[in-house]
């Protein structure tokens, strides 16, 4: 899913358009751009800055403040290991370590072949099933470390 600079600018302009005369658009715009492009390329941030007449520093400040935004491309599959309290007391650190070991990169890093990104998160809201992890939109609960490999193997 690679986009040319022109495509990035064009898509970003389209998303920004309805917000030009309204307040409070920056975060929804960043969310929409990321949903379409998978991350926030520099060209997109520059386009938003020009269109909304907001200084790039402010946009960059907002984009780096929130955990949800990513300035680098991400893997085809995002592995979210829950590090919330309920999962912690039921051994989620061991799950995270197993995931890192098997995938071979650290927290918030992406493999070179862009297959996986590992992302520890604070609570997926399925605490009753702790420990929990999510791959893309699928949730897996009641985990033990030995289950991790079988789960990851399903995602090419």
């Amino acid at each position, binding site marked *: 899913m690679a986009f040319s600079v022109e495509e990035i600018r064009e898509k970003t302009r389209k998303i920004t358009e309805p917000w030009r005369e309204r307040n409070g658009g*920056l975060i929804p715009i960043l969310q929409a751009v990321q949903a379409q492009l998978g991350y926030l390329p520099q060209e997109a941030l520059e386009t938003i800055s020009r269109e909304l007449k907001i200084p790039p520093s402010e946009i960059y400040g907002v984009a780096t*403040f929130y955990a949800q935004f990513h300035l680098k491309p991400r893997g085809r599959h995002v592995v979210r290991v829950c590090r*919330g309290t*309920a999962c912690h007391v039921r051994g989620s650190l061991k799950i995270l370590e197993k995931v890192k070991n098997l995938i071979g990169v650290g927290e918030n890093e992406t493999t070179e072949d862009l297959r996986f990104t590992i992302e520890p998160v604070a609570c997926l809201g399925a*605490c*009753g099933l702790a420990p929990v992890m999510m791959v893309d939109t699928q949730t897996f609960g009641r985990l033990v470390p030995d289950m991790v490999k079988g789960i990851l193997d399903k995602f090419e």
Partner: protein
Amino acid sequence: MTIFRSHVLICGGTGCTSSGAAEVIGSFKQELARRKLDGEVLVVPTGCHGMCEMGPIVVVYPEGTFYCKVTANDVPEIVEEHIYKGRPVQRLMYEGSGDMPALPHYKDIPFYGKQHRIALANCGYINPENIDEYIARGGYEALGKAITSMTPAQVIDEVKTSGLRGRGGGGFPTGLKWSFCAAAGGEKKYVICNADEGDPGAFMDRSILEGDPHSVIEGMMLGAYAMGADEGYIYCRAEYPLAIERLKQAITAAEGYGLLGDSIMNSSFSFHLHIKEGAGAFVCGEETALMGSIEGRRGMPRPRPPFPANSGLWGYPTNINNVETWANVPQIISNGGEWYASMGTEKSKGTKVFALTGKVKHTGLVEVPMGITLREIVFDIGGGILNDKKFKAVQIGGPSGGCLTEEHLDTPVSYESLTALGAIMGSGGLVVMDEDNCMVDVAKFFLEFTQKESCGKCVPCREGTKHMLLLLEKITEGKGTMEDLDTLEELAHMVRDMSLCGLGQTAPNPVLTTLRYFREEYIAHIRDKRCPAGACTALLRYTILQDVCKKCGICAKNCPVHCIPGDRNSGYRIETDKCIRCGTCFEKCPFGAIEKK
């Protein structure tokens, strides 16, 4: 309208969905159609029943038979036996403990016995995607009553009488807060629903939004009517996609019925509602940061006053309440404030939803009257400790809360009693811990969280939490000194007293309460270089108990760093200096011959 002789309610909440509820729903529809029963039996996907651990949950009405851990493969049997022949399937019922037989009904199950559901009244009973089901259970009656027969001031009085207090953490009296905003001048006012649910380990707001979105919308409308607001926002975390979808659907449905929009029920009251997705920052749950985030800025708290009631969103008077707070309002208006105030303690009225998690037998969402004891929640409702281990502590109120011990179990739960003990009600996260959980590690865990989430605006919070974390790391690695404990305590007080917002002011709570109630555990890490719970990896030592060891060699085969030399004749031994303390040998040994100390 078709009359169905039977309803099959299947939980479509997040927990059950991840255990395969979607397949169960599909399988029911298919099986009923195959037997031509789909005209008589209706499949209803519902919200969370609170017992997510036993999911997927299926309840068959009119009998009210409660089935748990249902898989798609079980469905033909339920349809054949229960629905076709009228013989409920014993093996899928909830099992009573000891020699109690299988429990077929909701109300017999101890998990539900002590609950009293107000905020969760509809969760698990109705299809959240169908506004008619909400209306059939009395939904939007309160709104009609308010608009046609109550003045805004009367609505506020009713909420004041109920004694309802903010469920988002602070516990501020809701009616009083509304009266401030109502008194503020100006044409334009906002109401906001705080659905940021930042406490990692609490999921009641999510379940309410997913299971009964209209109750929150109706609550907000009543508030808007009472305070004179015509526009509202629901600020929901982006990690809750299903909640956001259900809300959108509910708003569209309410607009379609003329319950939301201009001139509601032909009155002069108009109200428009928007959804804002959060972007993943804990501090955005704080009200001033949240409004900053809606306005599109970085979500950083600002000093108050001015309070939102006078100058909130874009400078207009604004009232912000938590999801659970809003969800209580329609029933207070329908049944009266006196009714609500008849439950609970002197100063904490009504019910509270808790997310009971950790090392209890039955985890889940429970709604109980205020004043219930922790023991009743953990042991009667939660069924006690998992694997019959020993209870050690319960952590209340998330990262801003504290750890309480055995001796506090009989305390009646209220805002005041918990604060007096150094914990807080918070959002209602209750994490139970057993003898295998290390309290120093738990304090470190929470501080890691708050330190990461500190927005960095003020120095005591930004720097103080970092130094506290460094000290805790030092202690859990066995490098701490007794002086470190004093420094830690001093820093904790400083951060608590000098930070700008609630995040910093409460971040030291987990440290302070564990220092207060589990000091000897800190001392064991420092003096004896030992973690009594066996949780702090750096302090662990694995050894093979030679008299138990059967020389099978399984540990040696599994050790990732090959530090267990030996053979099947002479036995095995762990080379401690090479051991990375991964615990694999401990888990794999079939004879329990490996000791972790």
